[in-house]
């Protein structure tokens, strides 16, 4: 899923200062699951915002709403009326949702209410971990399901750096060394040979380093 964290309230308050009618728009997908930008967070944010504005003695009209999925045009139509009557929209979706909103409702500004942090998964209650960078050339087959591009702090391709100790990454004791995990897993499946050969430099052009990417599927195009 895409994981995000709501921006600090003070930042949102500042961003919407010039506006009176504000719509806080949540998204029913990933950010709902990671408890950052779903319906509950949209309501809470709307309430907090109006209390803060009232305290400051300034009038405001905050509404909240949540669409099933903010990253596709077809789900946005249901919010049209609310969007049109608002001066500004604060989206609690990921950066994709914010941009979809700005493209679909071109005449209206949609501001980000969330910092989109990464693609990842919940590892336990309240903890999410990044595990894919979307590099466009998956190596998980060789590394038995642990991504060295996303989970090694140096995105190393040929094994662990000299800073790996006791299974932890040199960057922090709170981060597992991805290569330590990979080697343990390879040993478990007797597949150390997977990484015996020198892996050539990565072709980063399939990742964002090659510029913004587009996927075109001729077979499903209309």
């Amino acid at each position: 899923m895409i994981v995000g964290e709501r921006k600090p309230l003070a930042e949102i308050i500042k961003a919407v200062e010039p506006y009176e009618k504000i719509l806080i728009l949540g998204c029913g997908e990933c950010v709902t699951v990671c408890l950052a930008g779903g319906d509950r967070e949209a309501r809470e944010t709307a309430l907090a915002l109006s209390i803060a504005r009232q305290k400051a003695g300034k009038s405001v009209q905050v509404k909240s709403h949540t669409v099933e999925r903010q990253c596709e045009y077809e789900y946005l139509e249901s919010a049209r009326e609310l969007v049109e009557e608002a001066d500004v929209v604060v989206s609690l979706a990921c950066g994709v949702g914010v941009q979809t909103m700005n493209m679909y409702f071109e005449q209206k500004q949609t501001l980000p209410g969330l910092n989109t942090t990464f693609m990842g998964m919940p590892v336990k209650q309240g903890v999410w971990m990044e595990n894919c960078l979307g590099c466009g050339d998956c190596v998980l087959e060789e590394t038995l399901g642990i991504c060295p591009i996303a989970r090694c702090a140096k995105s190393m391709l040929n094994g662990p750096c000299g800073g790996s100790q006791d299974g932890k990454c040199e960057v922090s004791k709170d981060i597992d060394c991805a290569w330590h995990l990979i080697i343990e897993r390879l040993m478990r499946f007797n597949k150390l040979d997977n990484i015996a050969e020198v892996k050539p430099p990565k072709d980063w052009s399939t990742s964002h380093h090659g510029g913004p990417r587009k996927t075109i599927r001729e077979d499903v195009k209309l």
Partner: protein
Amino acid sequence: MSKSNLQKVLESGAFAVTGELGPPKSAEREVIEHHASYLNGKVDSVNITDNQTAIVRTSSIACGKIILDMGIEPNIQITCRDRNRIAIQSDVLGAAALGIKNILCLQGDHATFGNEPQAKNVNDLDSINLISTLKKMRDEQELLGGDKLEAPLNIYIGAVANPFADPFEYRVHRLAKKIEAGADFIQTQAIFDMERFERWMEQVRALGLHKKAHIMAGIIPLKSLGAARYMKNNVSGMLIPDHIIDRLKGAKDKKAEGVKIAVEMIEHIKTIEGVAGVHIMAVAWEEIVPEICERAGLLPRPTFD
């Protein structure tokens, strides 16, 4: 093409000695010359660190040229942290054009350790890719992307190994990969845990790696108890056993004890089969290197015409 002095020493079978210099946080040529002067004639080549621990310092290539002008042979360190393959290949050509022949390939400490923790960590290549890139430039006269170099490139390629990092059993295989990628010589992380180093060397010999590349053992003379404790706790990939700390603690003259430990370790390392030399890292304590080399019987250094 003329070989580097380090290559000549290693290939002659003599026990090699290299030193290390950390460039200053300033553009003072005299500072570099001053520190380097202690190493002149005492070691076969001097490593110049590349923004070590991600702290911005004068460029390793520039410092390399400065000590080259003093008649000292540099060994330029290049990390993968700060430059992509375009910049690295360009810098390697530039360094070679300045007369620098030894290049040591490292991954580089993560930028969060340094004085620019918000920097983007480049890591376009990893350290093994870096080694194979340099080998390709030298042996095939070709850039990574396939473009031909217009003239041969004369470099001697080094890499590092850390027998004290984990997973221990895998470390020797990583060394094998570095040698496979093209490393001519290896410098290890500083050794304090001799028992572990010996176990690692056993594995190195079992795979015959000491016959494929020259392996130099890392030594850091300990200047004080504080320095030892700091390294034990804060330097990634460094193991300092308690008995070393205790020895320093018990000593009246910490510096003298630190030197004694270093000399003893070198003497011991000389007896380990497959070790081709020592790499003495006395950064900010270069003045002690002559004494250590003298007492460890490493002087005079061999010369070649």
